[in-house]
């Protein structure tokens, strides 16, 4: 950890009280993001990626709640702020981009109205200043004829163009961190790369850090500085992207990487590892990955592994703990 991190998540636990007991969707996660850094987050569907993002931006939907842990933005705790204070942070300090651009925009307002409203919520700009800024932003995200398009309604834009508008909205008051939750999953394959490239370029230009949640290891390899691999609400492995891809340490990551051929060949999606991730109601004792792991030892069924540092990577696997002990 060099310098002061922008965001720090310490031992975060997110729970859903249900009739059949408490479900732990995010279980003791710790991570940090440095200013301007892109942290990729990968993992199968249901691994807890979206819940982690929602907890950070303070938008967990009840009955979901942060049961334990701390979230710090520039050293200041934000997980326990009153609603109104957290609201001022959303959009202003931490922005978000969601999966489906077709449903992220309010159909009844023009994109200009939505941009102006967001800008004016967080700044003292007059309406005409905010409108000028809105047009600038639309140009910046690559929408042709922005002076004209600013008056158009979401249904008048294609999916890719709408996601550009969403990016403009998320970046419109220059937040320090963007949580992009599968920003291209709902898009046509042919425009996914464009959108990722745009997001990457804008965040670099503005110095915005990104937590990029995706299924696409190819995108991670190209875009992220570091990557966190999540499994059943826990972090399996987190480290510099090159190291995790070229020299994965957790058996789950090894399985994932076996599935990406090379970046320019195919879409690099996570393919099958034998078996399925356990349901939240049936997470096994010990290491959550043990039913699917080919390298299990007794200990893997008894005790849950902690994250241990191996080179620049932190990994939660007893095999590496053992290595450490031997060293």
């Amino acid at each position, binding site marked *: 950890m060099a310098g002061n991190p922008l965001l720090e998540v310490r031992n975060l636990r997110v729970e859903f009280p249900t009739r059949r007991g408490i479900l732990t969707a995010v279980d003791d996660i710790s991570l940090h993001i440095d200013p301007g850094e892109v942290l990729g987050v990968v993992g199968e569907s249901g691994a807890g990626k979206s819940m982690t993002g929602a907890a950070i*931006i303070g938008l967990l939907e009840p009955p979901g709640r942060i049961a334990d842990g701390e979230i710090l933005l520039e050293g200041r705790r934000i997980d326990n702020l009153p609603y109104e204070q957290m609201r001022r942070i959303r959009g202003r300090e931490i922005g978000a981009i969601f999966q489906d651009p077709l449903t992220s925009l309010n159909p009844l307002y023009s994109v200009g109205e939505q941009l102006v409203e967001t800008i004016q*919520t967080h700044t003292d700009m007059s309406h005409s200043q905010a409108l000028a800024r809105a047009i600038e932003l639309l140009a910046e995200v690559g929408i042709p004829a922005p002076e004209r398009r600013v008056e158009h309604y979401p249904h008048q834009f294609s999916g890719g163009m709408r996601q550009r508008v969403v990016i403009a909205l998320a970046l419109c008051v220059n937040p320090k961190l963007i949580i992009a939750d599968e920003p291209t999953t709902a898009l046509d394959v042919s425009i996914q790369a464009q959108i990722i490239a745009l997001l990457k370029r804008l965040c670099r230009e503005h110095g915005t850090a990104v937590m990029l949640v995706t299924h696409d290891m190819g995108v991670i390899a190209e875009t992220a500085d570091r990557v966190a691999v999540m499994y059943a609400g826990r972090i399996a492995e987190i480290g510099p992207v090159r190291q995790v891809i070229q020299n994965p340490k957790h058996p789950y990551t090894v399985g994932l990487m076996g599935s990406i051929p090379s970046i320019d060949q195919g879409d690099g999606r996570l393919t099958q590892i034998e078996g399925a991730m356990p349901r939240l109601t049936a997470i096994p004792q010990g290491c959550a990955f043990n039913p699917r792991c080919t390298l299990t030892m007794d200990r893997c069924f008894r005790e849950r592994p902690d994250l241990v540092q191996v080179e620049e990577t932190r990994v939660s696997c007893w095999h590496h703990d053992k290595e450490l002990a031997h060293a």
Partner: protein
Amino acid sequence: MLAFIIRRMIQSVVVMFFVALLAFAMFRFVGDPVHQMVGIETSLEEREELRVKLGLRDPIIVQFGRFVGNAATLDFGISYQHQRPVSEMIKERMPATLELSLISALFSLLVGVPMGVYTGLHRQGVLSKVFMTASLIGISLPTFLIGILLIYVFAVILGWLPSFGRGVVVDLGGWRTGLLTTEGLKALIMPAITLGLFQLTLIMRLVRAEMLEVLRTDYIKFARARGLTNRAVNFGHALKNTLVPVITITGLQLGSIIAFAIITETVFQWPGMGLMFLQAIQNVDIPIMAAYLIMIAFFFVAINLVVDMLYYVVDPRLRVDASKAHGHG
């Protein structure tokens, strides 16, 4: 926009045409108008003469054409029972019904929408539960019972409000309004509440259900993620998206309020069209029944037209012409 309105207008005319056909059929096939108009001592020749004079011996098409032509100029013939032009009688009665209907519609909207928003936003709140339970009662009690209960409490026991009639009315160029005098307004309170209570509960439940639906959408989540204030999210973004169904239902309900005013008018002896219609049925006074049918159909059609135009104002996705002009991309 213009093409859209013209298209809807044509549809409205078609609907009105069929309603007119129905009303006309009523004339032809229910009872014998001549029989209704004359006494027992009238001779057969005199009856035949009257038939010719009334045009009842003309071909049906001609008769129907005349009926439509007359109805279009608001001439619905002479009431059998009262021997007065029906249009005159309607002109006297209509203000009472329209004022009652509009006020009760306003009442149900102005109270129902805020209650719906409140119960949608505070689902677990005590007040929400009170509203929801009360609305169940409102839905299940028959209108006349509510009316009678109100009369019993506020007119009989407390003596605060009159139990029947319109109070004091003021003539405004032929439109006799009860909205300008205290007595008139006091007389309006109970009938308006009775008539509007059902719609109020309906609108409240509709707004609540729509709010719950809209609050789950991605664009609301994204609006929150952009740090918009609660007020902007709940009212600017969520409530506005519930408007289309609310407008639809309100429009339909306004039509049925006017139609169902019959019961309320009976309970409160409100001198409106509904009361007149009921008496007409008892006396098989076909001209009044036909006129009433056509007037009600006209209100339904007109309200529908307004509703369609409101959609157009509220929802940009319906402004097809505009999006075509600018293209996609």
